[in-house]
């Protein structure tokens, strides 16, 4: 069916609202993650027995916790750990997954078989189990849970990269490069990768949200960040005994978490719209 094209010459479309909002809020959260310690009205670990479990007030916006610490300040501090864990984990899965996916997609044959069967096995472990297993083997710490979460998402990155790679490899300009006798690495990095990025970037944005949530879940189970430092997941976990008396201790970091995740989701959808409007992959 030949419906008329919207315009014969391409025009610059306005940025999608989701991108603007997502990027805005996420930038704000990032800013907090970086500048949190300077913005926080109190030290994150400054205890005050007289002020324990105070409801939110003008002084303590989000109230105080069971140690009398300022929840608002702790949420600001927590941003850093939660975001770092989310981004760190995603970077790990990106750093491992993308090269493997490219290799599997481009070289086919036994490297592909080896990588993809490994991925099949990894992917048949439910995500949190792998995290639990890895963390059960080692002493918990932030970077280890980031590593665990990162490893969990490697198979997804490999599969995505491989499928995008295969898709791009079907394009004729790749064949043209082969017809010139270009070397494999040139084709991979100069012809395929630049065109494979958009879906990978979009997926990366979504993975960050999943990594933040999974990281928080692992912290929640006590397998991540250690007190008194606190990411949002651990803050909620520690606040559980008090949710009837002082719900704000749990709710404040939870809402921060939710807002961050929503922002990154918006950002991802916005990116999807401008980078890869045809792509209909949903998150796995």
């Amino acid at each position, binding site marked *: 069916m030949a419906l008329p094209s919207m315009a014969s010459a391409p025009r610059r479309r306005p940025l999608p609202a989701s991108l603007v909002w997502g990027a805005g809020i996420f930038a704000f959260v990032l800013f907090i993650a970086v500048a949190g310690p300077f913005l926080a009205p109190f030290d994150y670990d400054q205890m005050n027995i007289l002020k324990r479990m105070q409801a939110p007030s003008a002084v303590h916006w989000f109230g105080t916790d069971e140690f009398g610490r300022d929840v608002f300040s702790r949420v600001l501090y927590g941003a850093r750990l939660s975001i770092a864990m989310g981004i760190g984990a995603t970077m790990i899965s990106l750093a491992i997954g993308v090269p493997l996916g490219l290799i599997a997609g481009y070289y086919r044959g036994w490297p592909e078989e080896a990588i993809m069967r490994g991925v099949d096995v990894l992917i048949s472990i439910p995500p*949190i189990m792998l995290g639990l297993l890895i963390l059960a083997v080692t002493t918990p710490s932030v970077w280890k849970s980031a590593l665990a979460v990162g490893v969990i998402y490697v198979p997804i990155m490999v599969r995505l990269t491989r499928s995008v790679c295969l898709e791009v490899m079907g394009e004729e300009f790749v064949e043209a490069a082969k017809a010139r006798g270009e070397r494999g690495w040139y084709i991979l990095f100069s012809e395929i990768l630049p065109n494979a990025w958009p879906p990978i970037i979009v997926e990366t944005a979504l993975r960050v949200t999943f990594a933040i949530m999974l990281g928080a879940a692992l912290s929640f189970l006590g397998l991540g960040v250690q007190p008194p430092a606190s990411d949002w997941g651990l803050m909620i976990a520690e606040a559980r005994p008090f949710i009837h008396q002082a719900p704000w201790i749990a*709710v404040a970091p939870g809402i921060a978490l939710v807002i961050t995740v929503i922002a990154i989701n918006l950002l991802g959808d916005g990116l999807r719209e401008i980078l890869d409007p045809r792509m209909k992959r949903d998150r*796995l």
Partner: protein
Amino acid sequence: MFGYLLQRLLYIFVIVAVMSVLIFWITQIMPGNVAYMILGDFAGMDQILALEQKLGLHDPIHVQYWRWAQGLLQFDLGDSLIMERPIAPILFDAIGNSAILALSSIGLVALVGIWLGVYSAIHHGKAGDHIVSLATYVTLAVPEFFWCVLLIILFVGYLGWFPATGYTSLSEGFFVWAQHLILPVVALVMGLMAHVSRLTRSSMLEVMHSQYVLAARAKGVPEGLVIRRHALRNALLPTITVLAIDVGVLMGGIVVVETIFSYPGLGRLLIFAIQQMDVPLIQACLIVVTIVYAVANLLADILYTFLNPRIRYGSSVNG
């Protein structure tokens, strides 16, 4: 089709076999001395050695693996080290409890998620679609454990409508039982429901813009029938695959939710086993989880096959 399913079955067997090696290997390198855990702080070195000998911990790892795998093939899961009792009955109780949670959740996710997705797809761009989209957007961003916290604060703390524990046995009456199940199930399904609904919406929208839906409209098929007969079945195919993957996510959720709601299921048993370094129990739990996940994928495959004639009727036939 039969051949296809046989392939899938074989594939699952291979995956489970590979996973069993992996699980065994990882649990073997776990720190913490098993004999020490059993005997406690007051055990002497000679006792520890003796127990290790008895447990076969000094055998080469492949011998230990083979012993374990053989047992597994005979449905013998061994004894819990910490509780000193056979694992099988403990595990089956837990699986049963988790299955109730998981099945009611995945059922709810499938039904409500798909319904919401279809609803917003056919009301694309209207108020209903916007509301559903917004709700799923927010819901998707809330991790299970925070759902638990929110639900407990709201329904247990303020409203007092539901009990906070996730479990009573069925013997105490169906309604009591169902009532106890509500909060854990809700906490489990919210995120997945949003996920499924968004996915269904997008695949439904795609299908609604497909040529064959246009062709159906051109035949004068009423819109309701277009949706039910022509669009839905094809739109559900990607949803089924995702539902299978969501079973994996659900298992993660179950660990958290069972912990928070003190629900005696597989997830809590696993956490307990890990906390106690009960290696045979960890192994048994993980292998069960792997099998369940693999079977969920197999079921999805079967369903997919059922709905997708491309697989059901193999390659093309020239007539």
